């Protein structure tokens, strides 16, 4: 063996001083109180004497921000020089968003962990959790309690501060990325006009936390996992962004609510118009999410748990929650971009938009679970090759086609049924040809590599018999 492992020094166990604990508790209580107060103001409808229900969340948030801005304008705040004009409205909006998103994600996670485990159980001909509570519904709660009780270890050789940060940091992109998601025509916390750009930017932040976790653990498995993650994220950001670019081209907007509105107006989901972009986006997202078949960053059978190998207790729980939250986010974004978001061919008049979106995201999430329950895992180099040789050229071709179509759409004054119908047919044809022929072009042969069935023989022998049968290699 050419080198040896360095042994870390023994460190005494960490003791948090009581003063710090009190300060932390006061800070946390203050944070909760502020959140509760803002929630109370909004939900109570005292804002402008008008009653807002949850479907008009967008209006409520806008109204709140407008009022806060007005207050701010009257009495300029002391922070104006530093953060600009409307700091208070942004701070309050962020807190408000945090309440809403956290409560939604928390609730959804508790249910979705159960759903996922039951689904996988069914796929694996077993029952899944069915002991804690009715139908095992309380299993996620029991898991969380168990994780909280477990000891949180810090490895000897780890960089302690950097090791503490990632579970907290990794929550930020997952949480903030939920901001622009439109749940109904007026139901988004942060309906900014560069939503797509914002999403791409924010979701790539996850890489930082993952790499930090892997590097600071001082563990080879963790390091391997984080290196894999970085390599993969860099590769898959590109097809993912190009896929979203084609969505932006055809709808002419980067605002998520506008994209959904476009699909509602044209009564056409973008999956029909942009099949290549849909597949590219979905596959790249599974790579970013570390879900099978692309879960190489935490490939259990190779590198144990990848970047979070050394995390235990609730720190691991946070990583786990973020992983599920990200899967949920991707399912939501697929539903928003490609499956029409809250629109359902006019039925959104009668059914609340958020229920429609939830149904669609559940379908997308089911596909994620299904993949996980079915497929083996790629190898890192295969995955890289797939991104650079296959997905990126394909999405570039797709971008070209969509660009031509978008410019035609702007100039050609024909009924939508004709133009969009024609484009749909063209794009599906192109998808079929491109998917098949590009695979052949980069050297994929469906039946290469010999027979897929063992040869049967009655004779017995060694190397001579093998040569006689032609099976010796």
């Amino acid at each position, binding site marked *: 063996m050419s080198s040896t492992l360095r042994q870390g020094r023994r460190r005494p166990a960490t003791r948090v001083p009581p003063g710090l604990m009190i300060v932390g508790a006061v800070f946390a209580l203050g944070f909760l109180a502020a959140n509760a107060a803002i929630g109370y103001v909004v939900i109570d409808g005292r804002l402008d004497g008008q009653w807002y229900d949850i479907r008009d969340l967008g209006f409520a948030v806008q109204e709140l921000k407008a009022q806060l801005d007005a207050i701010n304008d009257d009495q300029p705040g002391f922070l104006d020089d530093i953060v600009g004009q409307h700091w208070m409205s942004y701070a309050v909006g962020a807190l408000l968003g945090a309440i809403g998103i956290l409560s939604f994600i928390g609730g959804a996670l508790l249910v979705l962990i159960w759903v996922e485990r039951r689904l996988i159980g069914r796929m694996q001909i077993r029952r899944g959790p069915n002991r804690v509570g009715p139908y095992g519904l309380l299993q996620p709660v029991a898991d969380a309690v168990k994780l909280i009780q477990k000891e949180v270890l810090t490895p000897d050789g780890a960089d302690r501060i950097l090791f503490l940060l990632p579970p907290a940091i990794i929550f930020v992109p997952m949480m903030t990325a939920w901001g622009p998601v439109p749940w109904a025509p007026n139901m988004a916390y942060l309906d900014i006009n560069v939503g797509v750009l914002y999403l791409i930017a924010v979701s790539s932040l996850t890489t930082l936390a993952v790499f930090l976790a892997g590097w600071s653990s001082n563990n080879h498995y963790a390091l391997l996992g984080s290196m894999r993650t970085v390599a993969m994220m860099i590769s898959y950001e590109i097809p993912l962004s190009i896929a979203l670019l084609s969505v932006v081209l055809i709808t002419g907007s980067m605002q998520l609510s506008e994209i959904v509105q476009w699909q509602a107006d044209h009564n056409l989901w973008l999956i029909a118009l942009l099949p290549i972009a849909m597949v590219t986006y979905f596959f790249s997202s599974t790579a970013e999410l570390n879900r099978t078949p692309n879960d190489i960053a935490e490939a259990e059978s190779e590198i144990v748990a990848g970047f979070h190998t050394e995390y235990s207790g609730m720190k691991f729980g946070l990583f786990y929650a973020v992983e599920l939250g990200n899967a949920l986010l991707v399912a939501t974004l697929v539903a928003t971009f490609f499956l029409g978001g809250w629109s359902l061919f006019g039925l959104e008049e009668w059914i609340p938009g958020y229920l429609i979106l939830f149904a669609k995201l559940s379908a997308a999430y089911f596909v994620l679970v299904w993949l996980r329950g079915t497929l083996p895992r790629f190898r890192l180099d295969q995955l890289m090759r797939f991104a650079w040789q296959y997905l990126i050229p394909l999405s570039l071709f797709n971008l070209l086609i969509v660009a031509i179509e978008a410019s035609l759409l702007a100039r050609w004054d024909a009924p939508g049924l004709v133009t969009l119908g024609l484009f749909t047919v063209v794009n599906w044809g192109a998808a079929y040809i491109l998917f098949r022929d590009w695979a052949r072009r980069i050297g994929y042969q469906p039946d290469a590599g010999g027979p897929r069935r063992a040869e049967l023989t009655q004779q*017995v022998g060694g190397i001579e018999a093998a040569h006689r049968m032609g099976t010796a290699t």
Partner: protein
Amino acid sequence: MPAGPRQLTGDTVASALSGALPGVVASATAEWVEVEPNRIAEALRWLHDDAEMDAKQLSNLCAVDRHDRFEVVYHLQSMDRNHQIVVKAVVGEHDDPALPSSYPIYKGALLQEREVYDLMGIRFEGHPDLRRMFLWEGYPGFPLRKDFLQIPDHHPGLPKFPFEEPGVQAR
């Protein structure tokens, strides 16, 4: 005496072997052929290469401690001829036994010779990686030897089965 259903008799092997390599055979019975220990690699090489013997595979290698000597037993297999050859090498030296390694001929001897070295203490000279395998480096003694631990008045094996009576049948 029992022999495998397709075992080549030791006498046949011995006559072929001494024809090709004079003086290599020490003795032979119907079951096995005993080879001079320092020429074991040579004999195995010939058995491996000879078309009639065709011992292409070393199917088993183990050692037996006979109190004053070690028997190293090679079960060789010819697959095309479908017969088995049993070759033995007796190492007279009991304190520091050594034998030429068969790894240059059979790659399959890699782990089997390591196992014999680990548990029986026979050094195979020419083995590329002769270390303890199941036990750790520095383990005192070689446990499969009959004199391991040297407990006074303890004789290996069962002298008499506790409830053994003549005529009692196992059920």
